[in-house]
């Protein structure tokens, strides 16, 4: 679903919670082709504007409502990161790529682990809903629309479980270092 006029591009692309580095790479690739992220729409929708092709690094952070947003954004801005917007706790930043400077917002494994744990904590908020879905999945009375709802629940449940496992795996990988 792409709409295009000369200088605008609206793209739909889905990334899952464990694919933030893939998303960062994709946004960087778009910038290399001269398409720069301008704003975020609904989940999965990206608005780009055309410009000079540039090597720009994108980084996604995950925050909870606990933080002081003013202080947080000021710090990133002071460090040279432009804030593009946020989407359900995800913060989008970018900075011109530096050959020898820093292109990371997290610079040690310990703090990367903390970031993933915040994301995991957020996903855990949905656990009760998932348990309800799971316990009703075998109950034929719960789904009047034959298997449609059942199938939908199963897909949601599988995606959820997969996301949790993938994030756990990343935390373990960082711990082993």
């Amino acid at each position: 679903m792409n709409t295009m006029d000369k200088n605008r591009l609206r793209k739909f692309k889905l990334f899952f919670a464990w694919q933030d580095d893939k998303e960062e790479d994709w946004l960087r690739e778009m910038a290399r082709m001269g398409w720069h992220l301008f704003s975020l729409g609904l989940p999965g929708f990206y608005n780009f504007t055309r410009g000079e092709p540039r090597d720009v690094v994108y980084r996604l952070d995950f925050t909870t409502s606990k933080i002081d947003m003013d202080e947080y954004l000021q710090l990133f801005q002071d460090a040279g990161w432009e804030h593009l917007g946020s989407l359900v706790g995800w913060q989008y930043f970018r900075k011109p790529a530096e050959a020898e400077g820093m292109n990371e917002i997290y610079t040690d494994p310990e703090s990367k682990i903390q970031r993933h744990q915040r994301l995991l904590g957020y996903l855990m908020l949905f656990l009760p809903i998932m348990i309800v879905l799971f316990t009703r999945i075998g109950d034929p009375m719960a789904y009047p629309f034959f298997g449609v709802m059942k199938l939908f629940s199963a897909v949601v449940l599988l995606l959820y479980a997969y996301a949790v496992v993938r994030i756990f795996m990343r935390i373990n990988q960082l711990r082993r270092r």
Partner: protein
Amino acid sequence: MSEEKQMQKYLPLTEATYYIMLALDEPLHGYGVMQKVKKTSEGTVDVGPGTLYGAFSTLQEEGLIRMVKKEDRRKVYALTSKGMQVLRGQIQRLQIMTKLGSDFLSRLG
């Protein structure tokens, strides 16, 4: 003893946390800390804003640093006396490590 034991639970500090706490022997805001760490570590440690913000939150929760004032949207932090004690404990650990290391090097000749 029990107080020292309490301090031990914060140790060892990560390399980044060690430099961040050392930088806060004077009141500084986040970006000031980032610049100072880069300089004092002779370029060996470069702290990103995500890492720094996380460290500030954790250290503040643990009572090792505290906010001393607000400058516009920036908060200025400084070490607490508890933070000072923890830092002292970390420095002692490092001294043991470096002493052992230099003995090793001098044996090699």
